[in-house]
């Protein structure tokens, strides 16, 4: 092996190892892992199953809210949520039909919402504004109109 080749391979391995350590540290030590909740639900009985029998927003602490939301073609329920600036919002999500995506543009909130599974993701909203919430997983002819808003006041 040439010296240059050895240097290159050492740098490559070093860089890759650094990436692994950083992603690993963020995932396990800082709990920044991707949304991976593991709870099941009958996709045919979402409306009868708690907590999805009462979708909506609920205050659960000072500056802390829980949003229970269903996704279905081609809408979110509840729509047009409002929270005060500085609140932490815990989203609990499931789908009543096909696979949808839950993305809040301009934040890192991004999760797949699959029928039969309950997905969870949390976000703290500091900046006031009107955030676009949209479905980013193809779900049918009206996929591009599946959106709502979160207003942070």
């Amino acid at each position, binding site marked *: 092996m040439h010296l240059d080749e050895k240097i290159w391979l050492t740098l490559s391995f070093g860089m890759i190892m650094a990436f692994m350590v950083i992603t690993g540290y963020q995932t396990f030590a800082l709990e920044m892992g991707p949304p991976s909740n593991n709870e099941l639900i009958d*996709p045919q009985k979402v409306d009868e199953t708690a907590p999805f029998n009462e979708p909506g927003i609920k205050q659960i602490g000072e500056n802390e809210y829980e949003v229970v939301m269903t996704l279905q073609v081609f809408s979110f329920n509840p729509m047009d949520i409002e929270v005060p600036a500085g609140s932490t919002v815990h989203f609990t999500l499931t789908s009543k039909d096909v696979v949808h995506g839950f993305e809040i543009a301009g934040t890192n909130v991004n999760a797949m919402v699959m029928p039969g*599974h309950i997905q969870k993701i949390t976000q703290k909203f500091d900046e006031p504004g009107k955030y676009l919430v949209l479905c980013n997983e193809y779900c049918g002819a009206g996929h591009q109109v599946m959106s709502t808003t979160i207003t942070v006041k």
Partner: protein
Amino acid sequence: MIKSPLKSKVDSRDGKLAMAHLYVAFIALLVGGLAGLLQVLVRSGKFQLPAGIGYYQILTVHGVVLGLVLTTFFIMGFQLSVVSKTAGTFTGKQRTVGWIGFWIMTIGTIAAAVMILLNKASVLYTFYAPLQAHFIFYLGLTLVVVGSWTVGAAIIMKYAEWRRANPGQQSPLLTFMALVNTLMWIVATIGVAATVLIQLLPWSLGWVDTVNVAVSRTLFWYFGHPLVYFWLLPAYMVWYAIIPKIIGGKIFSDSLARMSFILFLLFSIPVGFHHQLLEPGIDAAWKFLQVVLTFAVVIPSLMTAFSLFASFETFGRSKGAKGLFGWLKKLPWGDARFTVPFIGMVAFIPAGAGGIVNASHQMNQVIHNTIWVTGHFHLTVATAVVLTFFGAAFWLVPHLTGRKLTKKMNKLALIQGSLWAIGMTFMSGAMHAAGLLGAPRRSAFSDYGGSAQAAEWIPYQIAQAVGGSILFIAIILMLYIFINLAFFAPKGEQEFPVGEALHPEEKAPMVFENWKLWLGITVLLILFAYTIPFIDLIQNAPPGSKGFKLW
């Protein structure tokens, strides 16, 4: 034993089989390219599809026809050619197997295409169960896969015959590489075959009511990631083993090339979870394990980059180049067979960096399902890979049809490559930028109820339309060149360039040809990465999902 003498030309019967594959590939380029043009125009917000055609129907055409049909047919035709060239002419029986495979793939393609055109299958090429297509769509795609196994069988038979005839010798480099890609493809497609045969076909036929969505997605992505390596490895064959000959240099290291291909076989499969990082039901620790394996597959790509630039530099210096980058000037920039794939290599640098972002657990969350991802794979497959395929077609097609690449066609080919680079810079650049702002992929035009955020994406969508239109012109130019080389170019002998190693006396260790060992490790790695989370998805499954037709 002395190596069997090789003909300088691919046998014309093998050439016909390879050309049959290339014809289908270039028809796919036209159809898929047209679909792509319509998509960027729709997303600019200034154009509507004529009545009756759906955006997602066009999108399904684009994905299936370019992602599966163009690539698979081109790759099979190319691999048959390099094996025939470097391991010798196929026997009658092997060639018949190849033809059977070709027809199975073609029939499958037509069946799937008809269903898409009838609007019975607008589920995109990633299937998206519980969206449910007509069963003939799934059946057609199964035939494409089974046909590709059959063509692959011809390559495996030829390799086995060569080894028997040349005991104790290392196989020709290009044959070795074609074999690795074929084996990787077979192991990978088992996943998509399983979801289609066990889940989607019985479900779309109404034999079972429901489907396990998470299992179907997991099986698909078990296949979906190695799919991108199946596209990439033939480009690497050209870069490692053919480009050095075109520029008049040598292959930097035969062993390094073989080692990197073995690493691709091992690491490109057990990594599918990096497409499912944001899904419920899979533990974050298993996702992280596959992220680590994904990073491992970056190593052979970095080795490839080193080897390529080392062979360029060695060549330049042998021509008396001075200084750190003086060798760049010695490269044959006027030769489209070199320059067009070179544009692809350059595109692979940002493409690879973007790929690491996509795979990185947390950063993935920023870009997942945004149009950034579309921008990413238009740099990898639709620039690095496709421009390398075009670069190969410039000599392969005339070689197989007994014609010559003329100066005029070479010039057009250079223009074609430059147009591609310009168009893609606009389109992919705008896609990356809009994706970072949150614009979704796989969506028709929408102003999202007058959202201010969505309004910021529109200038980028117009840039995509500009870039996409330039790319479509480049496609038309490529088709013109292809037709010229296949039917009208002057008769003659076009060289089939096959590189030689810089140090032919350095033999690669024979352990590289020990397939029991490499396939064994491949299977172990797959079992390691998948067994526990996969069993978990089956055992802890929710009630299944009924089929939906929502387009």
